[in-house]
């Protein structure tokens, strides 16, 4: 996919820092396969201009994504999606354990909102459908 077709959007007045909103969006694009290994990301300057935010914010997001192994610096291209480095060495159990605290927060909130078990699970399933591109 051409980087020009990627649409990022940030909400500066959110409690979530802008650089983390960008990290989340890149992660989502990669996980869903809309961004594939080798695909180029918009340049820092371009993205900062189009989102009307400070360049340092974009630079910080890209640097973190690079440290996480999601992006890689390619000469002449800039930032591109890295080859997936799925922690296959970790067992399913270990990977589930990593996921658990994140889901726990969401489930607790669901209980507070008085949602039933199937209703909570339906939300998870719809998120999976949206992001697995199925």
């Amino acid at each position: 996919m051409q980087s020009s077709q990627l649409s990022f959007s940030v909400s500066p007045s959110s409690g979530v820092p802008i650089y983390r909103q960008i990290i989340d969006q890149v992660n989502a694009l990669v996980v869903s396969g809309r961004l594939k290994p080798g695909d180029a990301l918009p340049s820092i300057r371009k993205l900062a201009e189009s989102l009307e935010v400070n360049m340092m914010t974009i630079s910080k997001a890209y640097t973190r994504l690079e440290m996480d192994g999601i992006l890689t610096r390619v000469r002449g291209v800039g930032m591109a999606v890295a080859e997936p480095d799925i922690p296959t060495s970790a067992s399913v159990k270990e990977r589930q354990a990593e996921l658990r605290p994140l889901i726990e927060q969401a489930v607790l909130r669901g209980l507070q909102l008085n949602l039933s078990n199937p209703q909570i699970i339906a939300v998870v399933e719809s998120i999976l459908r949206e992001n697995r591109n199925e």
Partner: protein
Amino acid sequence: MNSPEVRIEVSKLCKSFAKQAVLCDVDWTIAAGSVVGLLGTNGSGKTTLIQCLLGLLKADSGLVMIDGENAWDLTARTKARIGYVDQRPKFYPWMNGSDLLQYVGAMYPNWNSALCAEYAKQWDVPLFKPFGKLSPGEQQKIAILTALGNEPDLLILDEPVSSLDPLARRAFLRSLLEIARDENRTILFSTHITSDVERVATHVAFLHDGRIQWFDELDVTKERIRRLRFRSKNNFPASFTIPGALHIQIDGSLVVASVAATSEADIEAVCARYDAAVEVEELNLEEIFLELHHVDA
């Protein structure tokens, strides 16, 4: 920014007006390349602080250093590297914008008229009407132009967007982002519009009770100042406390605490002690502003 050069150093700055203390022992260091949003309530002393930083007001005690020079006694060379916009710009009312820019530009060794013309076009500034006949917003735009023409290394703006309509504000913020792209440039702007700070600033400072109450990177600020909701099966005691608390509200088995820089370990300790579950709520800058001033949103 990793530049070791320190741009502004404030130490033990005090300023009173008619025995009323406005600034008390302000200590503050702004590194080169930062874009700092200065927030504070009306009358908190933002303008006084800015004018002391620039040597426009004499401090009662304490010291402000700009690039190693005492702010009260800046050399012409350093003054030429500074741009400043007053909250209420005052110029000769009979002069039009075009003449005014020429007049101000003549005082600087380096003046970029082409840049001024470019911004004037971008912001739709009427350059051929007498300054006194312009609306406050138009006057403010011209004042900003006079502060940018010398392409300053240090740009200080006191409520630069207070008179601008949303369209003009966005256009100005876009330009400010462009200006901030030069990493050696330091920008300080005061405002009460928190969303402007969120878009542009790298750092945020809160002036409260005559002091810099909080100063940190914007992202770090958002990550450190948070609201925690603890829920337990039992009622919380009135003595409930947590390290870093700004404000605690106890309501039976529910505690809502706004905290600054509280560690995860401290949060876990509270959960364990009261057999409670915690929900962490991230706050935007406006909510952080309210929490730092102990105002219930």
